[in-house]
């Protein structure tokens, strides 16, 4: 497909708009809409079947996470971070713990770092699997792919539950380590799950990757250029699908990611199909990291002994910490004034910022494509609105 710069697309469309101003149709997709992943809303202006303007409307799940976090202790915000991106609570925990560790200069024991990597990569697996499932659901493959994805997700959730006690809201990581050590037999069980996961990926690929309907619906649809992706601050699989080699696991090497041998899949066209395939490939890379981490994990303490659980007061100052969450760059920005509560607590939500370019991708597409394009952005409303 010929690449059209989005700016050109925009002017072309606005010219079309001027021609048929009276024939335009304003519709509001959402906040209650089966395809909008919760309570997201887009105000769409249609010229026939084509989108000429699209304005996302946020705030339907604005739960005041930041305001609440500024009134409670540092520790008490940890369970709230679970509820940001509620598909991947463990990576949220990690991002927050990492930032506080930066803020207070805490060292994390090696075993805890390994546990963090293992849980984060498992989170990535289940997030990408269910994202693809939801995407297929929106594309009209009602049920089957989503059910397969959730079947695997349940297996991973069982691992999470036996480790953290909860299926989704793990509240597992602490400043300077993890809350509890791995239960007996957990590593064996995880190894088994990791060994069997490629079977599911193969199955998923056979089911979907060469499906003609899927190809027709995804290839060349919702193209995001490299330039616009960087300009718009897009991160995560969406950025890499547009051909930018930027993975925070490689760039920042936070935790112990420099010890693992894995590659970063890069897309070429930046269309919906690339974004879908990048996620499949990333799952395979995650499995690589998992195999290495499960092999190398060492015994030892899981908590930094110097860090207090209660009455934690970091020195005055600020820190911005970020990790590569399954959705993109998840960052926390904390300002401490020396009191037990953070003075400023800010979440840099990848889901919200990845939506910046939604309009550019959807201009000129039909409504049905809009839903598909939106599906590949992979947002979770808890994180968009916080």
């Amino acid at each position: 497909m010929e690449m059209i710069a989005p700016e050109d697309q925009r002017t072309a469309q606005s010219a079309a708009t001027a021609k048929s101003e009276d024939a335009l149709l304003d519709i509001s997709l959402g906040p209650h809409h089966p395809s909008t992943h919760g309570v997201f809303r887009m105000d769409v202006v249609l010229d026939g079947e084509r989108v000429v303007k699209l304005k996302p409307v946020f705030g339907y799940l604005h739960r005041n996470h930041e305001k609440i976090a500024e009134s409670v202790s540092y520790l008490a915000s940890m369970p709230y971070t679970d509820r940001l991106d509620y598909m991947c609570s463990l990576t949220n925990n990690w991002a927050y713990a990492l930032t506080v560790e930066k803020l207070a200069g805490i060292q994390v024991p090696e075993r805890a770092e390994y546990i963090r990597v293992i849980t984060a990569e498992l989170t990535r697996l289940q997030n990408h699997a269910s994202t693809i499932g939801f995407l297929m659901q929106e594309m009209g493959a009602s049920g089957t792919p989503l059910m397969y994805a959730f079947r695997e997700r349940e297996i991973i959730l069982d691992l999470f539950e036996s480790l953290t006690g909860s299926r989704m809201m793990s509240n597992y990581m602490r400043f300077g380590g993890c809350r509890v050590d791995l239960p007996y037999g957990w590593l064996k069980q995880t190894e088994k799950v990791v060994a069997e996961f490629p079977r599911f990926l193969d199955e998923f690929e056979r089911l979907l990757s060469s499906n003609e309907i899927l190809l027709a619906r995804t290839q060349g649809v919702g193209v995001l250029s490299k330039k616009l992706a960087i300009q718009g601050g897009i991160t995560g699989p969406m950025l890499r699908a547009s051909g930018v080699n930027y993975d925070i696991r490689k760039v920042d090497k936070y935790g112990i990611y420099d010890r693992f041998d894995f590659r970063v899949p890069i897309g070429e066209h930046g269309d919906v199909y690339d974004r879908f395939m990048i996620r499949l490939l990333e799952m395979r890379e995650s499995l690589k990291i998992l195999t290495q981490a499960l092999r190398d994990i060492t015994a030892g303490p899981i908590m930094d002994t110097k860090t207090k659980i209660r009455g934690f007061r970091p020195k005055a100052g600020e820190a911005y910490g970020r990790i590569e969450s399954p959705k993109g760059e998840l960052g926390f920005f904390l300002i401490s004034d020396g009191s037990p509560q953070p003075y400023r607590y800010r979440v840099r939500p990848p889901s919200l910022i990845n939506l910046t370019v939604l309009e550019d991708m959807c201009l000129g597409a039909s409504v049905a494509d809009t839903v598909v394009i939106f599906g590949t952005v992979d947002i979770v409303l808890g994180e968009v609105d916080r």
Partner: protein
Amino acid sequence: MDPELKNELSRQGIFTTTLEELYNWGRKSSVWPLTFGLACCAIEMIATTMARYDLARFGAEIFRPSPRQADLMIVAGTVTKKMAPQVVRLYNQMPEPKYVIAMGACAISGGPFKQGYNVLKGIDRYIPVDVHIPGCPPRPEALMDAFITLQKKIATQHLTGVDRPRHLNPDAPSEFIVPEFGAHDLEPPKNLKLWHITSNSSPKIPSTADNNEPGKD
């Protein structure tokens, strides 16, 4: 009919029923929920409908995207003040008989986000709720348990008399006021008529606060 006699008859292969039971059986066995997820609990709601838990076994196989075709609204997640008017509007659009399950802490009372300025402290300020499930989020089994509770509730309803279900009572309201966005808060902040009905049903006062002086803190 005497329940023992009925049991005995059914053991012999003769099934007896009353019109009321048959009617309630029909109602309770095909409660179709509305595809309506708000937040975290929605993911557990989806998990409930997936292969492992399979809510379809209870007669709720189809999640209807349109409120016009749905019987049950599962308020799964935090209702924010910005979302509250839409929730009430959706409820109003559902035809009778309709039921509401408040799933999770947020839907019941605002839950952990209760202290937030944009969080509605419980959906029962605007619409009547049939079953509450505490939990954050409740496990899929807990949602199924709530579903069974709802079915039991439907099965024991009497079709005549004062406590007959709302759709058989022309005086009972089926639609409720939709709140408006105000400058600082929703207008009105609660549906007073409805809120009083809920609160009068079981007034509960702290068990010993009346006799004891509150501890100095």
